[in-house]
């Protein structure tokens, strides 16, 4: 058994001369639900495609269940469930035929569980995959990925293109399936509410760099937004390490700081603020702060 089903070491990927992934190193421990966040084009899908051996890396290496992604054996492939962005599947196949194919190719097929999922989804078996709605394709993809009882599940923006109701249904089912089995999950999304609901560890990709890699609670504890009011005007020379963002208006200053600790608080107090109030931050707020171009460097240096 592998302690880290996913290991990424100094991964670099250039695509048509453009750096898409820039020195990513990451370990996903067994049983962890890892939320990979990033804006469109930040490199999430490329990272996942390299993990699955669909794309060669330019430099560095990735290990999936202890095997190099570039040389994944059939047996390792058979232990990984993958729900792809856009749910391509094989469009020209009928649902029944696609299921038969996947069943025939699998190393292990949980008929009972798959039957339960199909009963829940009520997918039309005689329709071609391309005739299904995006929501139905997402459900079919999830059912096929889960039927093999995978040790590792990789979900690449699985709710992309789904309406609110379908997205909620999909996530509820995914959460149910995931929690029931206690698997390792890598879940990429740019819908932060989804990640916040299911992830226990998050990574944030900004322009190909992994600027955040920590537990979700830890991230919320370490990144703070403070509303500081000074008696007269805000000091020009206020300096704290790891300031991600700073907004000043009259006597008021709103600071977003990474790695907030008592030392930093003590330094701030030397500037004699009238009041210092911590403002609550959602994952979305943190994400927006993290993905600012200026903050990416701060976060990387401070190793959040």
């Amino acid at each position, binding site marked *: 058994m592998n302690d880290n089903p996913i290991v990424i070491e100094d991964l670099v990927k250039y695509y048509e001369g453009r750096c898409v992934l820039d020195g990513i190193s990451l370990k996903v421990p067994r049983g962890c639900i890892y939320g990979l966040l990033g804006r469109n084009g930040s490199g999430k899908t490329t990272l996942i495609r390299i993990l699955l*051996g669909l794309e060669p890396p330019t430099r560095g290496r990735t290990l999936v269940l202890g095997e190099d992604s570039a040389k994944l054996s059939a047996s390792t*492939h*058979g232990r*990984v469930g993958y729900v*792809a962005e856009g749910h391509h599947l094989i469009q020209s196949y009928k649902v029944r035929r696609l299921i038969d*194919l996947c069943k025939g*190719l*699998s190393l292990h097929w949980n008929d009972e569980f798959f039957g339960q999922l199909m009963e829940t989804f009520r997918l039309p078996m005689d329709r071609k995959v391309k005739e299904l709605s995006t929501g139905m394709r997402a459900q079919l993809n999830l059912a096929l990925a889960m039927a*093999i009882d995978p040790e590792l599940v990789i979900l690449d923006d699985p709710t992309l293109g789904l309406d609110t109701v379908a997205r909620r249904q999909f996530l509820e089912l995914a959460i149910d399936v995931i929690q029931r089995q206690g698997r390792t999950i890598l879940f990429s999304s740019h819908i932060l509410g989804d990640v916040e609901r299911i992830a226990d560890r998050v990574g944030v990709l900004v322009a190909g760099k992994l600027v955040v890699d920590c537990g979700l609670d830890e991230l919320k504890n370490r990144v703070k937004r403070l509303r500081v009011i000074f008696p007269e005007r805000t000091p020009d020379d206020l300096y704290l390490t790891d300031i991600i963002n700073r907004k000043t208006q009259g006597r008021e200053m709103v600071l977003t700081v990474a790695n907030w600790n008592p030392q930093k608080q003590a330094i701030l107090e030397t500037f004699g603020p009238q009041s210092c109030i911590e403002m609550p931050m959602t994952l979305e707020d943190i994400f927006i702060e993290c993905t600012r171009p200026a903050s990416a460097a701060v976060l990387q240096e401070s190793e959040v």
Partner: protein
Amino acid sequence: MLKLIAREICDHSVYFGVCCVLSAVIVATLICMIVYGIVGAGVLIACMVAGLLFLGFGALGVGQMYADRANRVSTFLSTQAVTRNRILVARILVGVLTVVVTLVPALVSGIILLTLKKPPLEFYSQMVWDICAVLLLMGLACHSMGLLVGWTGSKARLFVGLLCLMLLLPALVVVKGFGPATAALLALLILVVWGRVWHVFTSASL
């Protein structure tokens, strides 16, 4: 592996069917030649249909790769419990199977015809076997080159590739004739093309 082979056959059953029909036409023509002794027209028809049959083998290879790339079939299959090597081996085996199943009956008919018309030459039997070997290898070469040119997203490249395929192989036989040297060259060509297809397919982004 059997599932992958079955999938390849089902997905490309049209090509397989067309090749079977063309092979049946050749066999029928050869039987007519034996029974009714219509040699001139029979040879012409058999040669023309054989040309189409070889084109059919090339088209099968092209269809397997082009449809795969266009519909991202291997992208999906690669996320199942299979490797790219197995996908490619299944594809090649289906090509070999098609060539053998469709060419062997036509070749057997041809051998019977040639044996009946056996001229008093010592090396005649050897010549018949050389012709059969070259034709079988030509069928495999057509399929393998189809696999190679089919792995493209550009229809222009596909067309040019097929044109080259149509010109190269007959030209080789016209220049070298049906002999062991041609068979060796074709065998070498097939190995090189398979190697190239393997390299392209296993290193490509899916």
